[in-house]
């Protein structure tokens, strides 16, 4: 065996310290270092002091041979770089070779990213099956963990929010980061829905537009056939255009284009008056 046997961990162990080996007859050993100093602190600082020994080094450590020739990241940087270096790493090593005669102290293992390798939609089975007797309409716990349908998604640099228009069954999405003013947003609304609205008025118009498409204007000033409203992070409906653009972008969760004639019917939240004032 060549010296490719990297002993990077051993680099970090001060020479005079001895790993407390517990060897069983099969030669499997594991360390139980008490030294917080040598501990490759892979979790956040202040984590508990379970011994940290690594990936199958045991059998090779006992031979206690070669030096590592590769660089190994210093201890304090270990919690970068993904899965192995996450909080629970330390805690899991009590699992290590358990010779039948040795009783192991058990602490609850913490989660490691992506381990075990189960896709996320399989993960909540224990809870969803208990809720089986509930109505299928009760969503909150059952919906896949990561998704909140109403929240805007940040895909990369964009900030996508859903936008629906009265009379058009198909919703769209807009990337608010690509606009910097209400005017541009208003133009986008026209672009997104003009064709769809026309198709709704004349369902047989497939392909070349049979009837003239009406431009959608006045969504911001209350003068048009439609008005743009939004739902903010508290679930309240607000008229679009009252707060500075950047404030709008930070609180908007979704957009709606409503018929202006129906606006009075919609409760725009009396408490909102107070909110809208604070610019």
């Amino acid at each position, binding site marked *: 065996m060549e010296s*490719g046997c990297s002993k990077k961990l051993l680099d970090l162990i001060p020479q005079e310290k001895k790993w407390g080996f517990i060897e069983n007859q099969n030669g499997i050993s594991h360390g139980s270092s008490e030294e917080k100093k040598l501990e490759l602190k892979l979790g956040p600082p202040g984590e508990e002091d379970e011994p940290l020994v690594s990936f199958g080094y045991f059998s090779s450590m006992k031979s206690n041979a070669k030096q590592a020739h590769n660089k190994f990241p210093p201890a304090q940087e270990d919690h970068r770089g993904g899965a192995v270096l996450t909080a629970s790493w330390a805690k899991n090593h009590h699992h290590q070779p358990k010779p039948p005669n040795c009783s192991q102290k058990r602490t609850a293992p913490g989660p490691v990213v992506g381990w075990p*390798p189960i896709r996320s939609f399989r993960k909540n089975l224990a809870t969803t*099956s208990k*809720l089986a007797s509930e109505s299928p309409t009760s969503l909150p716990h059952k919906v896949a963990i990561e998704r909140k349908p109403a929240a805007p998604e940040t895909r990369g640099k964009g900030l996508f929010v859903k936008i629906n228009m009265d009379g058009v069954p198909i919703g769209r999405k807009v990337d608010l980061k690509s606009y910097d003013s209400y005017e541009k947003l208003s133009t986008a609304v026209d672009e997104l829905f003009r064709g769809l609205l026309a198709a709704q008025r004349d369902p047989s118009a497939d392909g070349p537009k049979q009837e003239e498409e009406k431009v959608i204007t006045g969504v911001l000033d209350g003068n048009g056939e439609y008005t743009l409203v939004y739902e903010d992070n508290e679930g309240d409906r607000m008229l679009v255009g009252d707060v500075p653009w950047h404030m709008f972008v930070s609180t908007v969760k979704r957009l709606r284009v409503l018929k202006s004639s129906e606006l009075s019917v919609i409760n725009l939240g009396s408490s909102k008056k107070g909110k809208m004032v604070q610019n």
Partner: protein
Amino acid sequence: MSEDDERQQSPPSDLEFVSNKARNCNATGSGSGHPEFQSTYPDQVLENVLENVLHFLTSRRDRNAASLVCKSWYRVEALTRSELFIGNCYAVSPGRATARFTRVKALHLKGKPRFADFNLMPPDWGAHFNPWALAMAKAYPWLEKVHLKRMSVTDDDLATLAELFLGFKELVLVCCDGFGTSGLAIFVSKCRQLKVLDLIESEVSDDETDWISCFPEGESNLESLIFDCVECHINFEALDRLVARSPSLKKLKLNRYVSIGQLYRLMVRAPQLTHLGTGSFSPSDIAGQGDQEPDYVAAFAACRSLVCLSGFREIIPDYLPAIYPVCANLTSLNFSYANITADQLKPIISKCHKLQTFWVLDSICDEGLQAVAATCKDLRELCVFPVDPREDNDGPVSEVGLQAISEGCRKLQSILYFCQRMTNAAVIAMSKNCPDLVVFRLCIMGRHRPDPVTGEPMDDGFGAIVMNCKKLTRLAVSGLLTDKAFDYIGRHGKLVCTLSVAFAGDSDMALKYVLEGCPQLQKLEIRDSPFGDAALRSGLHHYYNMRFLWMSSCRLTRHGCQEIARAMPRLVVEVIRSADEEEMDDVVGTLYMYRSLEGPRTDAPKFVTIL
């Protein structure tokens, strides 16, 4: 029905681009070397004959081989290839693909590597379908079928497919994301020839759009509608009407928002179904207590052609007996969402004599597996998923279940088994009892866990698998493993094509054994194992033969990876950073490298550095 069905291919379709460039003028065209064949007429006849013959060639491995014969065959093969498979969307550009293959009717594309499914890759890494959609729109307006796996598809892409391809018939999205119900709505409303819409394990965002209502009125050509992964309410009445007007519908897989009462109504409408996903398999609250429960047994009995059953997303086990009438005909049963006990399983499984594919949760325990072994003598594929995927000392299934399966199901070809404990003895037994194994994936959830009986590493078990299962092409290892295990794999795993390694090995030697020993290796995914730059170097002779190599949380350094990048110009070497890493750190968090004809991609996000 396997989660990840990969077929071995050699030579790979993208590799031949490279080799053909080299061939170039030296290729023996039909006109060179023999003066009597210089005239064009015999050439033309030859090409026409060839074209007609090659139309019958369907296997892409055969086609790849045929295209390498000579320039003439290359040309004709390119003209006659109607189904284009690209295993890594970044290996070749849409432009290059459409330039070579001009008459493609079906496109099969794969994007992200598998470990992306487990949150090991930041979102927005890439694999966008958009450039392909646009290129196809120009090059193949007659395109009928698109099959995507792990790609990012937007609503606009769906709109493109529906609007620009008039005869579009089949869309299959596996493990995709980036789109929502509004995209689906646009797609189904415009795609009038649609036969197949299969959404499998994809993330579909809820735009609160009633997409089911958007299917056009009138008789539908639908043959397959799979939407069990769509986590939103659907308009049931619209679905009911859709099924009623889809006489060719054979496959229907409902999501968990469909109650058992609604399922009943659909089954009565479509007794011709061959594949059924039952939805929640529990009643909705709305059904009053006093109502007569429909005769579920009769509904199942009427489905005489049913061979594949899945769903049971929120199962009330009391309803299980409803499926008795179809058990005898079932070849595929998926209980992997059904948290049922061994006693609940037994009456079902004891009737499933023809079962070939069985997916189940470990809630059935070893006892349940024993019942499976007792009846399902024809079983080819078994997947046992954990109800509770934590690391623990004990779990409901163990070496006992594996041993039982190996003794009862001798024809087993594919197994995925999650457990907390496993012995070498059981794995060795399986290697001997099931010589037809092609896929062996064992996930001992406790990391570095040795054989609990002997205390030894799991080397011998996996060693036996590669030694005795001569057809093995896919292997996933776990538990405490030393370099010895990898030595075995390198020595005996001569057909291994896909290898998954996690928390295993002692040193670079392990990776060396594999890279030097496994000539068919195409996909290698490694996480949290102590392999460094030296090990990486040992694969230089082989990387062009591989689709990709993934190494995360190993011992790689940036300069080590840089070396590889310099030595192999047709490899794209991506270093992927997680959120808290700095760009110039020498330690590499994740390495993802793949061969490509295109060089570094232009759509890489900030957290990806291409060396």
